[in-house]
């Protein structure tokens, strides 16, 4: 039975429950809703919730646990001998899943009967031949054992799936019965319903925690896996980045330092563009600009923040890069080889960060109390002297926080560097050379058909972990500084 049908059945049961619960409550009060403890809606909702919440909870749990159980159950059938040289249990399991899927398809198009597909005594060569006839891909890696594992996989997943469907419907009906029997005119339906809703609200709020936990777990597991194959010291202190794509590790040198250098260099250039422009713009907008200028210029700058990064990436790749080459390239000064360089990515990223710096600084400058400005102006200082000697020092911690936030954005930015910075990892001082960054390498190591077991793919998780730790540290520091500062004037 498809999942959508099951969901529909449960929903129908729930709606029936709603109507029944409401009727029963009204009936118990003799048809007069004034005799009830709660409004009739709550009696209905109570039954509805006692159908839906346990049934859906069970379904979610089952959908997560069943594959885990089947995997561990089936993989225990696979012997050492099935795992070939250079392969892994994960790959063999993928093979098992594919064969199982092939059997399903073969049964569906009628190339095989159901008994034949699940028969324990089925002839191996006959089976593979029939599978091939049915248009299913069967590689030479399929052994008798794998075929049997696939059959077991099918059988147990089918059984568990049926069990899940039956149990879910039983639970829904039990919920209906429970909610229905509880319904009575003195039953405190509203309190119960509100408690359930509160629990759902808390669950929704916990998604944020779950996400963080998910991020950390998925990074840690794979990073640990990576460090098991590849020494951590070589990763953190290695000066060369040259993954080999053909072999299975061994020859790859996966040093973090050149990537970190590229990231920091590009971010530095981006900040060198964004911070002065953003800061001056913020000062002008908050201290000098007439309301009309402010009403036009502020949203115009913020449009820059609303443009997706893919647009900036394309701008770097196709407009800024060629422009820089025409000035600094072979025909001009001769410093630049190709269109993608640290400068290209840095400049464009700087443009992207201008509104980020300017609107954060604008908020902070605006929150400096007016009394401080008035005091300074009253002493005869000009406006610019007030800004330089009173407002900026007072706003400095906040501005530092804003710059840190911008820096963490720059370090985590992906599309601009993927498209504008180049692919070669290099330790060089020349800003017109192509370099690469942590984020760009995460993308290039994880796109394509990687099997998550080679160090070349797993290194991306270690890179992601480093990126996560660096940006998280900067964010926490920045938020801390900004908050501490805000409290001073509140």
């Amino acid at each position: 039975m498809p999942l959508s049908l099951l969901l529909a059945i449960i929903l129908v049961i729930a709606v029936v429950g709603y109507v029944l619960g409401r009727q029963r409550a009204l009936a118990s009060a003799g048809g007069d809703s004034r005799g009830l403890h709660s409004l009739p809606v709550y009696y209905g909702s109570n039954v509805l919730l006692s159908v839906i919440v346990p049934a859906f909870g069970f379904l979610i749990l089952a959908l997560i646990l069943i594959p885990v159980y089947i995997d561990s159950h089936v993989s225990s059938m696979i012997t050492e001998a099935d795992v070939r040289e250079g392969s892994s249990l994960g790959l063999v399991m993928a093979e098992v899943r594919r064969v199982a899927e092939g059997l399903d398809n073969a049964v569906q198009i009628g190339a095989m009967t159901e008994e034949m597909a699940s028969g324990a005594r089925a002839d191996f060569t006959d089976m593979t031949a029939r599978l091939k006839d049915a248009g299913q891909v069967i590689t030479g890696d399929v052994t008798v054992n794998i075929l049997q594992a696939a059959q077991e996989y099918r059988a147990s997943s089918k059984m568990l799936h049926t069990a899940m469907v039956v149990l879910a419907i039983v639970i829904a009906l039990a919920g209906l019965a429970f909610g229905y029997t509880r319904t009575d005119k003195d039953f405190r339906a509203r309190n119960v319903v509100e408690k359930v809703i509160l629990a759902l609200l808390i669950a929704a709020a916990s998604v944020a925690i779950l996400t963080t936990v998910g991020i950390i777990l998925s990074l840690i597991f794979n990073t640990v896996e990576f460090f098991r194959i590849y020494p951590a010291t070589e990763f953190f202190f290695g000066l060369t980045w040259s993954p080999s794509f053909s072999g299975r590790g061994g020859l790859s040198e996966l040093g973090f330092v050149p990537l970190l250098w590229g990231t920091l260099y590009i971010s530095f250039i981006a900040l060198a563009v964004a911070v002065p422009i953003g800061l001056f713009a913020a000062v002008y907008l908050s201290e000098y600009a007439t309301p009309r200028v402010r009403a036009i210029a502020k949203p115009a700058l913020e449009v820059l923040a609303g443009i997706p990064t893919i647009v900036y990436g394309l701008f770097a790749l196709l407009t800024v890069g060629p422009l820089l080459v025409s000035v600094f390239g072979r025909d001009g000064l001769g410093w630049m080889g190709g269109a993608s360089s640290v400068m290209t990515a840095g400049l464009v990223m700087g443009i992207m960060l201008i509104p980020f710096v300017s609107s954060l600084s604008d908020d902070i400058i605006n929150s400096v109390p007016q009394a401080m400005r008035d005091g300074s102006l009253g002493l005869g200082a000009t406006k610019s002297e007030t800004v330089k000697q009173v407002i900026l020092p007072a706003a400095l911690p906040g501005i530092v926080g804003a710059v840190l936030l911008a820096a963490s954005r720059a370090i985590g930015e992906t599309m601009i560097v993927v498209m504008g910075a180049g692919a070669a990892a290099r330790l060089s001082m020349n800003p017109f050379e192509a370099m690469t960054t942590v984020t760009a390498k995460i993308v290039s190591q994880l796109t394509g058909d990687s099997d998550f077991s080679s160090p070349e793919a797993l290194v991306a998780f270690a890179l992601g972990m480093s990126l996560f730790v660096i940006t998280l540290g900067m964010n926490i520091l920045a938020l801390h500084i900004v908050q501490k500062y805000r409290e001073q004037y509140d």
Partner: protein
Amino acid sequence: MTDASAPTPIGSGARQGKHATSLYAEDARTKKRNAAEKRFQAYGIAAISIGIFFLVVLLVSIVRSGIPAFTQTFIEVPVYLDAAKLDKNGNRDPDDLRKVSTFGYAPLIDNAIFAAVQDAGLTTEFEKAKDMRAMISASAPAQLRDYVLANPSEIGKTVEFKILASSRVDGYMKGRVTRESVARDKNIDAAHFDLIDQLVETGDVERTFNWDFITGADASESRPEQAGIGVSMIGSFFMMLVVLCLSLPIGVAASIYLEEFAPKNRFTDLIEVNISNLAAVPSIVFGILGLAVFIQFAHLPQSAPLVGGLVLTLMTLPTIIISTRASLKAVPPSIRDAALGVGASKMQAVFHHVLPLAAPGILTGTIIGLAQALGETAPLLLIGMVGYIATNVPDGIAAGFLSPNSSMPAQIYEWSKRADPAYYERAWGGIIILLLFLMTMNIIAIILRRRFERRW
């Protein structure tokens, strides 16, 4: 009485000397300070001008490079559907017709164009009909074949077709390709362009608005003239559906809990810290999360809009929570107090009174969050939305969520990676469409805010 004996201030004589002429004349120091003031203001104006200049350059280069993608060159030519080639048995049997592959159709088009050229008396150095093939798209025979399979009765007649020109010809019409740039091109000669110039004069070749770019599917690397963004638009649509259906309820529920019910304790502090940190986590990290959890662990299909939607949901949740909380906070406490005062429970006060009043703000925040999600690319690269050529429109709703597809930004990225410069034009054109969507969403958000937001 002490006035007389009061000592003259030290240096007053010197100062009087300085102001000997007029108090209004600026001294050197004042001049310097005023100049500094002027300079400082000029820096500010310069900074804003640079920012706006960048914006203008960005927009101009998008529009200038993207507009050509919306027109396409077509060759109008009458094609004789030769029965001897298309239907050898002569019985119009659909199965027999299907046996003729596109290779059988290509010569018909070549001959048709060659005949048209000769009939019009155009001068050309080409002597063989086969030389005409460089001017037409590789997709043209398929177009002809589809037509014939749909209308078998037309075989043996001469039918007027509007055939897609090849990308080189299209580039020549748009000024992207010049005679010099094809000097070493194996696919086409400058002589073809001479012929095109003459065909333009006779009206057989023209550029028209290209609906296929907006509604069509992506094409293979060698056929940029055929590529469109329509299918990936559908992918984006399904993704946004997932994001909307998940992030709006979850985000609103979480905000209601945090803003209205949460006691101040460690658990709620933990949630708060988490939300503010998640808002600043690089988007690529969410891609890693999606890859590890949804694809590696849960075995959901790669490149599916469902997975993309889930990842983007997690990414936009913090944005939606933050804006929803702000609009809940803006509802004055007197509303809650009044509701509680007439006997509503806390839950009723929130759901019946506070939430409806905060709805415009929540909606605005959600639309802005969706706009952000629509333009996001980096996490989608990791879950396999790139490298997949989206050529088929998903059949049905379930397939829309589960079968592999691309999304608008991923499609643009894909085009920008391809070798043929004709694809760059498509990428810019795709950006125009993407930005139009974002602009519409933001304008709706602004209108909602202006129209419905109340200030207390």
